[in-house]
Structure formats: C-alpha cells, structure tokens
C-alpha cells in the first residue's frame, strides 16, 4: 500500500522486482556465506521460503499434535472435532483412491494438504505487511508465500517422485520397474523377423515412459508454483494501483481463497493418485 510514496523513487517495476526477490544466503567463491548476492549460485538457501515453510509446518504439527495428544474416543473437544473433520476428509479420499495398504500414504496426504494449504494461505496476507515489517528490522527482502518459490514446490514434488519410484520397486520389484519403463506402451516382438525392431521399440518405450515419469513431479510442482506465483503477482499489481486496490484486492482475495484451497487439494490428490498408480498393476 502506498509503497511508491514511502520508498522514495522506486518505480513500479522495481517494486515488483523487490517483492519477487527472495531473502537469500549463499556460499560465494571465497567459501564465505554472503547475503543476497547469489544470482546463479547453486549453494543458495532461500531463507524466507525455508523460514515460512518450516514455521507453517510446525504450526500444522503443533495444532494437529495437540489434538492427537488429547484425542479421546469419547466426546471430542472442538479442536479435536475440527482436526477429525480434516483427517476424515483426507482418509476417505485416500481410501477411495489408494487401494494398497500403507501407513505412509494417508499421513503424507494429510501433511501435504494442510501444509500446502497453510503455505498458500500466506498469499492472503496483504503483500506489503510482512515485507515492510521485515524492512523495519533490517531485512531487505522477504517473500512470504513459500509456494511461490519454485524450490519449495520442487522440493515437495521430488519427495513424492522418490516415493513413486520406491513404491513401484516395492510392489513390482526392480525387474517390474524396468519392464514398466521398457515394455510399455508398445510390446516389443519376441520372435521372428520383428526381433530386429525390438531394440528400437524398447528405446522408444524408454524415452516415452521416462518423459511420462518425469512429467509427474514436474507438473505437480509447476502447477502449484504457477498458480500461486500468478496469484501473488496479481496481488502485487493490485497493490500498485492506489486507492482502487481496495475493492480489487477484495475481489481477487475471494477468488484466490478458492485457488488456495483447490491447489492444496489438487497437490494432495495427485500425490495420492501417483503413488496409487505406482502400486497398481496395469
């Protein structure tokens, strides 16, 4: 709000740039940790993303853990009832989609859903509040929505990717995994003159299946990142327009509330679906 006036000669594009810049710490060539001079450096940590994502994860663990500690099979308290609604919601989806028997998938889905929802929800805090408060205590950059950081969404989707491969190998064995990568979708001929074509078909299958496999975490993370990044960008743009931002912000926030919930749900749903695909025979 009114940031143009307060931050001196900052132009609109500088304002947007500033909002899209992570607070970063990295190891430079001299081996020293430096702040915010990290373009192109792989040894970088986005401190703000990590801080908010871990903070929100801890909030999730704390609230749900509190409910779990005091959970009773008798008359539930209000917190327990609230937590149970979410747990039951996730549980019914997992039971509908995932037919294997796993102690991991349902808690994974619950964690992903609530955590991603909380991270997305940071988007609804007016875009200048936390960065300005941070500037007040000397932190130059602050991006408050972890899911607008492609590293965060990729970090989660890669964990899911590892789980996909783990479950594929667990249920079908290494041979089954290799077969899945090479014998589908076109079955190579096993005898006759067609045998000459078999290596090409296998190579073709391998390329196709690899693309399909890699597309899963890629689409999973980029979908979440894209939606939230775009939403955040629009909030920033709205913040530039002056007084008219108030109705605009309200309208977009109401709409964004839908996106926040929906994206968290989709992320959870696809996580379950991918793992369920990995554990089922074709």
């Amino acid at each position, binding site marked *: 709000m009114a940031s143009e006036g307060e931050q001196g000669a900052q132009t609109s594009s500088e304002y947007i740039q500033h909002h899209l810049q992570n607070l970063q710490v990295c190891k430079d060539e001299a081996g020293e940790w430096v702040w915010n001079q990290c373009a192109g450096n*792989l*040894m*970088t940590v986005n401190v703000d993303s990590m801080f908010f*994502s871990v903070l929100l994860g801890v909030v999730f663990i704390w609230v749900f853990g509190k409910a779990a500690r005091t*959970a009773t099979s008798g008359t539930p308290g209000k917190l327990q009832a609230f937590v149970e609604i979410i747990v039951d919601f996730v549980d019914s989806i997992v039971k509908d989609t995932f037919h294997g028997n796993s*102690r991991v998938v349902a*808690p994974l889905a619950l*964690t992903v859903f609530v955590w991603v929802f909380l991270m997305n929800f940071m988007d609804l805090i007016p875009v200048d509040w936390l960065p300005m408060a941070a500037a007040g205590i000397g932190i130059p950059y602050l991006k408050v929505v972890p899911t607008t950081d492609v590293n965060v969404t990729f*970090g989660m989707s890669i964990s899911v990717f590892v789980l996909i491969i783990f479950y594929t190998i667990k249920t079908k064995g290494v041979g089954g995994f290799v077969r899945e990568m090479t014998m589908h979708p076109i079955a190579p001929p096993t005898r006759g003159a067609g045998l000459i074509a078999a290596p090409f078909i296998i190579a073709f299958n391998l390329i196709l299946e690899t693309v399909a496999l890699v597309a899963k975490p890629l689409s999973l993370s980029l979908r979440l990142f894209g939606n939230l990044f775009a939403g955040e960008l629009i909030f920033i743009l709205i913040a530039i327009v002056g007084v008219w931002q108030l109705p605009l912000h309200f309208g977009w926030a109401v709409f964004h509330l839908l996106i926040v919930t929906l994206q968290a749900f989709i992320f959870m749903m696809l996580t379950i679906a991918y793992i369920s695909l990995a554990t089922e025979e074709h």
Partner: protein
Amino acid sequence: MDPNLTLIGQSIAMIVFVWFCMKFIWPPIMNAIEERQEQIAAGLAAAEKGQAKLEQSKAEAKGIIADARKQATGILDQAHSFANEIVSEGKSEGVKERDRQLAAAKADIEQEANRAREELRGEVSAIAIASAEKILQREIDAKQHEDILSKLAAEL
C-alpha cells in the same frame, strides 16, 4: 527462481513433517475416530437388542397372564365342582343316616312290641288259667284235665 539448496531443505522439511505426522498425529486421531465408531455401532446394536428383548418380554408376559387367567378359571371351576360334590355327599350321608336311625328305631319298636306281646300272652294265659281254675275248681280235677289246659295255653 533458480533451483538451489532450498530444494533439498524443503525436501528434508517435508520428510520430517510427514514422518512426524505418520508417527504422532495420524495414529492417535485415527484410533480415536475408529474407537468412537465402534462404540457408536455397539451402542446402536445394544439399543436394538434391548428393543427386541423388550418386545419378546412383552409377548412373554402376555402369554404368562393368559396362562394364569386360564389356570385361575380352572381352579375356580374345580372348586365349584368340589363344593357341589361335598354338598351332595353330605346330603346322601344324611339320608343314609336317617334311614339307618329309622330302621334301628323300627327294630327297637318291634322288639319292644314283641316282648310286650309275649308278656301279655303269658299274663293272659295265666289269667285265663286262673279264671278257668276258679270256674273249674268245683267240677274239674286239675290233674285230670291238665293235658287239655296245657294244650290250650300253647294255643294262646
């Protein structure tokens, strides 16, 4: 926007949170929910069973009451017939007793009468003999006519 270490950090954070959720959050909540489901199911089943039992008891009670009523009627009937029997028995006993008394009295009377008749007969014969003696004292020797006299006495 560039990929960097945050990616790994986020992966680790996710693994930790998921592990924590799997270990300490999901099982107790799920247990509580499932336990409550079982309790509610058991409660409903118990209520249903109770209802059925009530129905059954009602039917049973009805049967018992009907039985008791029947029994009571039977007892009443029996008592009536018993009473009748006693009364009729008493009656017949009375009649018998009366007959017996009557017969005894009759026999007594007869006996008495016979005895009186015997006495009377003796006395009459004695009187007759005495009067005949008196009449005949003059003309008849008692010894001579004794056989006739005794014949006469026997005839009387």
